[in-house]
């Protein structure tokens, strides 16, 4: 995971609350077996509307989403975070996030920054007054700056530390690889292994056929 200290990019004001994960990425896209390439799926139902904000030239290349409360509610699909990241978003700013979405973002290196709703309104106004305007998000200072407006945000200390160190959960765990290896050294001999495979004798399985 890349280290995240500050990020500067175009802000996208999405004036909607309760954007659930079905709206972020509809269920039909969950059948894919890849982990990347979900950019086309992001907000798929809304992208058909030419007035939708991401269809407007000035916001197209946005990287900071500023949205209404209760973002990411609904199903726990991690695809919602993948879709936002694949599209190019680095930060989502809202006054409230669904817990699971926030947890998933932290794991995948997408910053979910919690900002007071009154400050969200300020950011929305600034971004709408000057479409394509850039925001600077400092994880170090926990601030979002847009022109002469600076507001602060909240983020879990542990998640912040991890993002700043550029450590995904796996990277972090692998820092303790020695502990894992040491633990493995103490495991009882009776604990089963899947390899080499042991089974009962191989037997032919008759294929069932449709009746009628």
């Amino acid at each position, binding site marked *: 995971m890349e280290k995240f200290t500050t990020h500067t990019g175009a802000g996208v004001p999405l004036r909607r609350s309760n954007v659930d994960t079905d709206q972020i990425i509809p269920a039909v896209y969950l059948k894919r*077996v890849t982990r990347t390439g979900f950019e086309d799926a992001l907000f798929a139902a809304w992208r058909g509307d030419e007035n939708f904000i991401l269809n407007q030239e000035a916001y197209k290349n946005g990287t900071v989403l500023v949205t209404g409360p209760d973002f990411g509610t609904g199903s726990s699909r991690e695809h919602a975070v993948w879709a936002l990241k694949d599209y190019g978003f680095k930060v989502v700013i809202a006054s409230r996030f669904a817990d699971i979405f926030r947890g998933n973002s932290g794991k995948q290196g997408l910053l979910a920054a919690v900002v007071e709703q009154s400050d969200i309104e300020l950011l929305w106004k600034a971004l709408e007054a000057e479409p394509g305007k850039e925001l600077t998000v400092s994880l170090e200072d926990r601030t979002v700056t847009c022109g002469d407006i600076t507001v602060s945000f909240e983020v879990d200390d542990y998640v912040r530390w991890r993002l700043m160190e550029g450590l995904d959960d796996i990277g972090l765990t692998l820092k303790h690889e020695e*502990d894992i290896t040491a633990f493995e050294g103490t*495991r009882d001999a009776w604990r*089963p292994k899947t390899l080499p495979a042991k089974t009962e004798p191989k037997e032919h399985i008759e294929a069932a056929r*449709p009746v009628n």
Partner: protein
Amino acid sequence: MGTTLAEKLWASHLVRQGEDGAPDLIYIDLHMCHEVTSPQAFEGLRLAGRQVRRPDLTIATEDHNTPTLDIDKPIADLTSRTQIDTLRNNAKEFGIRLHSLGDADQGVVHVVGPQLGLTMPGMTVVCGDSHTSTHGAFGALAFGIGTSEVEHVLATQTLPLKPFKTMAINVNGELPEGTTAKDIILAVIAKIGTGGGQGYVLEYRGEAIKSLSMEARMTVCNMSIEAGARAGLIAPDETTFEYVKGRPHAPEGADWDAAVENWKGLVTDEDATFDTEVTLEASDLEPFVTWGTNPGQGLPLSANVPNPEDIADADQREAAENALKYMGLTPGQPLRTLDIDTVFLGSCTNGRIEDLRAAAEIIQGRTKAPNTRFLVVPGSARVRLQAEAEGLDKVFIDFGAEWRNAGCSMCLGMNPDQLKPEERSASTSNRNFEGRQGKGGRTHLVSPLVAAATAVRGTLSSPADLEDADVLVGASA
């Protein structure tokens, strides 16, 4: 002060205690994979250039998507075929043992693990599937995980976790004739609610649990997740040891003795305290069925469809109203009079050999209700073979049932085995959510005994209902 079984399992797998708000790092003894929740995890490994740390503690099988007919032909559904091909490629690339469709050890992942002797007491078991709680029946800490966590376990054989709370579920007394493990767990869920177990590991205790067979214990633990719990547990005893002994991966010789020595210590201490305790009297139980669209909406079979107006809690009243509308039911209707279109016997809840035996015993010598379809899907290919060796397949086929190949099948309707809109099923599976068994399908969760009796009468029934107007022709029931 003593510790609970769950706490002992946690402590014995602690690789590292979390500091400064970081979670604990827990070692995973067995990781099981299937085609639906693993593809992105393997892709994640590939993107990061990582390997599977312990292929020898990992196993995969094909179950969620697989057809239960014509398994020797290419899978017709393209998405399913892609997911299965992806699993096959990943297993090959990362050196993981895979039991594919057509292999005698293929089947629902939670049936396959125990049957191979890979699930044992004292382990930590995970799988990208919520019903991993099944394996808790052995006194193992077993729980479902998400795709990121699947990747994490593949890469590190550990998981960062915050400790769970503990809840004791005491089931005292003796189960009455005609009731089963399924009725215990449906009654537990109806009692504590679908959210009642949230954040907890449930430990099932008491005489009624002690006297259950290993397979029946799996049925109980399987549905812990339907009460919102992360895991269910039953302390191992002679029944457990007996079940594990002699299975392909069971320890042998001195290893066996060492294992049993260890397993005997896997009990909650007398003076340990649980965060919460719940008690049920087994003797009060009757065959249980669900009437609504979540597993907590259940009642004894002898009851009537409830009237939402009688429910005090506003949210639950609304949920009941919606459920009745979806299920096409009227308050006051006796549950016993509901016509059933399809009976599904199978899944990781009730697709094991004992379940098939129990159902076969009831239908033997009887005839199927003419308008009811009876789908029998063994939980694994081995269960199918075993049933065939005992002649159960003939009993089912003579009765008019469809005898299928192993897989998840109609439990979740990801393959062609689905209900049609407004079709009503009596299903031995674990979820009666809207659309779970097919768009618009209406599911009543039942035990294998109720499933079999229902297939005879065509309406929701218990074996006791068969005795009055008995149409026994052959062997005794």
